[in-house]
Every structure is written in C-alpha cells, then in structure tokens.
C-alpha cells in the first residue's frame, strides 16, 4: 500500500507554488523527482568523504570507494545481475547505448542487420544509424500498429541469420506501451541476435530480473529513477561486455601503460575511464534503496490506478484523443484535443502550475506515424494523486475554452 501523505513529504520539491498555484508535476517520464534521503546521501558525500575512488590509500578515498561499489552491488541485486561488474556506471541511458553501439564497430560486418522498433527514442535510433554508417550494416525498422503496439509477427518475419542486433525500448517514452520483451528476446535469441533493451522508462515502474529474462544488455538512467541527473547504467552479460571494443581511453581503465602498448583493466573499470560521477552513483544507489523501501509492486499498482483514473477522466473531454492504446502500459498518457496545438495547451497548463511535456518527445518517427505535430504527454509517479488529475482535467477544459 502507498501512504501518499508520507511519500509526498519525502519529496520537498513538490511543496511549492508555480505561478501562484500548487505545483502539479506530471513530467516524470522526462525527469522524476528526488527524495530527501537521496539528496542527503549526496550532500553527506560532499560533507564527509568527497575524494577520488579506487586510488588513494587514505581513509576518505576508501570510504568513497566503498560507497561507490556498494551502489553497484545494490543495483546488481535490484536487477538480479549475476555479477556486480556487469553493471557499468555511465552518464545516462544515452551514454550507455553509445558505449554498446561503439563497441560493435569492429564486430559488425557489411550487410549485417540491426532491427530497431518504430517507437524508439532518438537516443536509441541515432547511435545505431551511426554504427551502420561505420560498418555498412543495415538498419531495419520493426513497425507498430495504430494502437502503438509492436507488430510482433512482422518483427519475427524480419529476423534472419543476418540479424545481429535487436534494439528495443522496454517502454515507449512517447506512448507508454510496454513491449513484450520476453517474446522479443526468445525470437531474437533463436536467430543468435543480441538484444539491447532501453529500460529508461521501465525501470522506475516495475521489477526486472536480468537473469530470469536472459537479458543481454539493459540500459537505464538514474534521473528517471528518483536519483540524481547525469548518472546511468549499462548492464551487459560479462562475456558480451568483454567482446565490445573500448570507446574511451583514460585513467583507471588501464592495467599497464607504456608508450608501446597499454593493457586494459578488467570489468567494470575498463568502461569507466576517468573520475566518475561519484556522488551521482552513490545517490543512484540510494534512490534504488528508496524505491525498494516503497516496493516496486506497490508503486506499480498505485501508478496503474492513477493511469486508469486519468484515462477515464481525460476521455470525458470533448475531442480528446489518446495515442497509444496498448493493453499493457505504464503511467504515460499521450494525447491531443481536437486540432489544438500541444504547445498552446502546454503553455497554458504551465500557467496553471502543471508541468507536462509537449512536442515529439524525442521520438519523432512515432509522431510522424500519427501525422500530428506532437502530443501532450502526462506521466505519473507514485507521489501524484487523483486530486492532481482532477485539477489537470479541469485546467485542460479551461485552456481549451481559451484557445477555441
């Protein structure tokens, strides 16, 4: 069960007025808010043991190293990876995807195929286009249907022994669709293709078990998981990570350096050159602890309740059209009202103190699919309430009246 009063008190940022109105934060799919306990963890690092990790013999450095590596263990256990060093810390999901895409530069050959879905975020399109340019591999797009659901049969028919990589978002950031990753994994694996899953929109909302699902690669961002910005993770099976070529050189990633030849350190350090975002990683780990203290199952069922309520209430607005009608959705609703431009509605909602996202959500192909200029996207988190949804619906009706 969710104790909403207690939870809201954990997030100090929620208690403020915007344009004279109580803030209603419905842009969680872009960045989620950070609980006090995570903020404290980060400030305690700077107050008490800020120092470089994996280097010093002194007390502070050891304390910082321990906290940093504890965060790795926390995340390993949370996702049930088999080894802590299969979790690589990055600056975010986009960075993680780029590490994999760069790592395949020497592995892929001309004519090999990469399949991505039509509902990917730009950050899960562009690195693969660039990989294709470097290698001569071919990018194929697995289509969606009008409901915003991946056409699984079509995807299956596109797979062949030429398919080397399948790239799929776990949850669509624009529509909220949850993709059937179990089926995608088993189909892809039967063709010996490796699967890269963008979990940025999934990890905040439900439990994922890397080993049970036999996941090859999985990426996520801390700032969508109630943690700080500028941190993320890349999970890869040990064997796969070791096949990737290295993309960045620097300190800490090396075993020995001479001017003739450098030998590299082991996982995970070879993918974490230079001083990492230590405070961020420690905060990320604490955010996972916080999430687990609430319980992802509780979070998931509460958010589902919010979603169903919001869908029902929004549907009452005349000419409102929801994009993305998958049976399995997370707490994202994308919509338009009649011919009104999402920018106009978003600008007025902002005046009502309501934060939503408008536009193409960095997933332009999907917006082009529906032949619209963009959508208004509301995305919920477990600290939102039905009262906030009521206020939003009321504000949308008022905004519509102003604009017509």
């Amino acid at each position, binding site marked *: 069960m969710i104790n909403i009063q207690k939870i809201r008190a954990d997030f100090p940022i929620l208690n403020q007025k915007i344009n004279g109105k109580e803030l209603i934060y419905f842009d969680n799919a872009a960045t989620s808010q950070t609980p006090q306990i995570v903020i404290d963890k980060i400030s305690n690092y700077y107050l008490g043991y800020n120092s470089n990790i994996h280097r010093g013999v002194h007390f502070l450095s050891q304390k910082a190293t321990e906290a940093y590596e504890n965060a790795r263990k926390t995340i390993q256990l949370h996702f049930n990876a088999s080894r802590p060093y299969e979790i690589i810390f990055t600056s975010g999901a986009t960075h993680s995807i780029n590490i994999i895409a760069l790592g395949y530069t020497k592995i892929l050959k001309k004519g090999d195929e990469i399949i991505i879905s039509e509902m990917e975020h730009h950050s899960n399109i562009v690195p693969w286009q660039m990989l294709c340019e470097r290698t001569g591999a071919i990018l194929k797009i697995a289509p969606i249907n009008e409901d915003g659901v991946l056409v699984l049969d079509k995807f299956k028919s596109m797979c062949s022994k030429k398919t080397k990589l399948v790239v799929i978002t776990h949850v669509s950031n624009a529509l909220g669709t949850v993709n059937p990753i179990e089926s995608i994994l088993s189909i892809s694996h039967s063709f010996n293709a490796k699967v890269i899953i963008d979990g940025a929109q999934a990890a905040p909302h439900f439990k994922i078990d890397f080993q049970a699902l036999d996941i090859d690669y999985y990426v996520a961002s801390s700032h969508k998981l109630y943690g700080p910005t500028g941190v993320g993770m890349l999970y890869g099976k040990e064997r796969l990570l070791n096949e990737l070529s290295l993309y960045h050189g620097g300190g800490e990633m090396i075993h020995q350096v001479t001017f003739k030849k450098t030998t590299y350190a082991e996982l995970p350090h070879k993918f974490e050159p230079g001083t990492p975002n230590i405070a961020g990683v420690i905060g990320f780990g604490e955010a996972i602890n916080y999430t687990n203290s609430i319980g992802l199952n509780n979070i998931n069922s509460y958010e589902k309740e919010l979603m169903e309520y919001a869908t029902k209430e929004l549907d009452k607005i005349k000419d409102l059209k929801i994009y993305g009608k998958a049976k399995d959705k997370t707490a994202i609703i994308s919509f338009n009202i009649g011919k009104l431009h*999402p920018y106009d509605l978003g600008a007025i909602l902002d005046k009502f103190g309501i934060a939503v996202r408008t536009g193409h959500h960095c997933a332009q192909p999907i917006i082009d699919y529906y032949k619209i200029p963009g959508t208004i996207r509301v995305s919920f988190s477990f600290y939102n309430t039905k009262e906030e949804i009521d206020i939003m619906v009321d504000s949308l009706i008022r905004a519509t009246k102003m604009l017509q």
Partner: protein
Amino acid sequence: MKTISEIQQEIIEEFNIFSDWTQRYEYIIELGKSLTLINKKYKIDNYLISGCQSKVWLNAELVGNKIIYTADSDAIITKGIIAILLRVFSNQHPSNIIDANTDFIDVLGLKEHLSPTRANGLSSMIKQIKMYAIAFRTKLA
C-alpha cells in the same frame, strides 16, 4: 511613422490594462487568430524556422527602404507573439531593426516563450528577422 521603441512602449501600455495572465493570454490568442495570413507560397520548408515544438514561417521583402515581414505558425500562442513581433519590426528601416532590442517581451511577461527551451521557433525568428535586416541593409548601401 512610429519608431520601434514607440511601438514597444505602446504595446507595454496595452498590456498594462490586464490584471492577470489569463487576460494577457486571451489577448495574445486573439492576436494570433487575427494575424494577417502569410502568402501560401511562403508556407514551405524554405521559409520555415525550425522549432522543435511549434513551427514558424517567416518571409521578408524590401519595399522602398523598409522591410515588410509576414509570418505564420501552427500554434496559436506562437502566432499571437508573432503578431506582436511583426507590429514592432515590420515596416521599419533595416538599420533600426538591427539596433532594436527585445527586452519589451520580458516586460510583457512573455519571456518564457522566447526561451530556447520552449523550442517554439520564436527565438530563432528574432534572429532571422535581424539577419534579413542585415542582408537588406547591405543591399540598400
């Protein structure tokens, strides 16, 4: 003929009557609806100023020694702000356009619409208005 700063002052005074944002926005929306339509032939990609959210089309022509701007957008609030910008900048001499500032937008309480994060094409539109002015001044010289 009013100068750019006189027109800006005039608009600020008009906005002073409004007691809250809803009145300001309703006025902008009205301006957006009544914006003189841009000639269809300019509503193509060549005249498009890319914003990530709403689109802006802008055309400029030199008539005598003054620039006449016409513009359009797919979003009505953006269109309303375009109407204000055109009232300020259109039918002015290129040199005056180049020298003009846009601080009056802040005074009107519309600053957020010109922020690059809004990505509505308006901040690029002002740049483009000035670029045209620079190009036409060279032509006049």
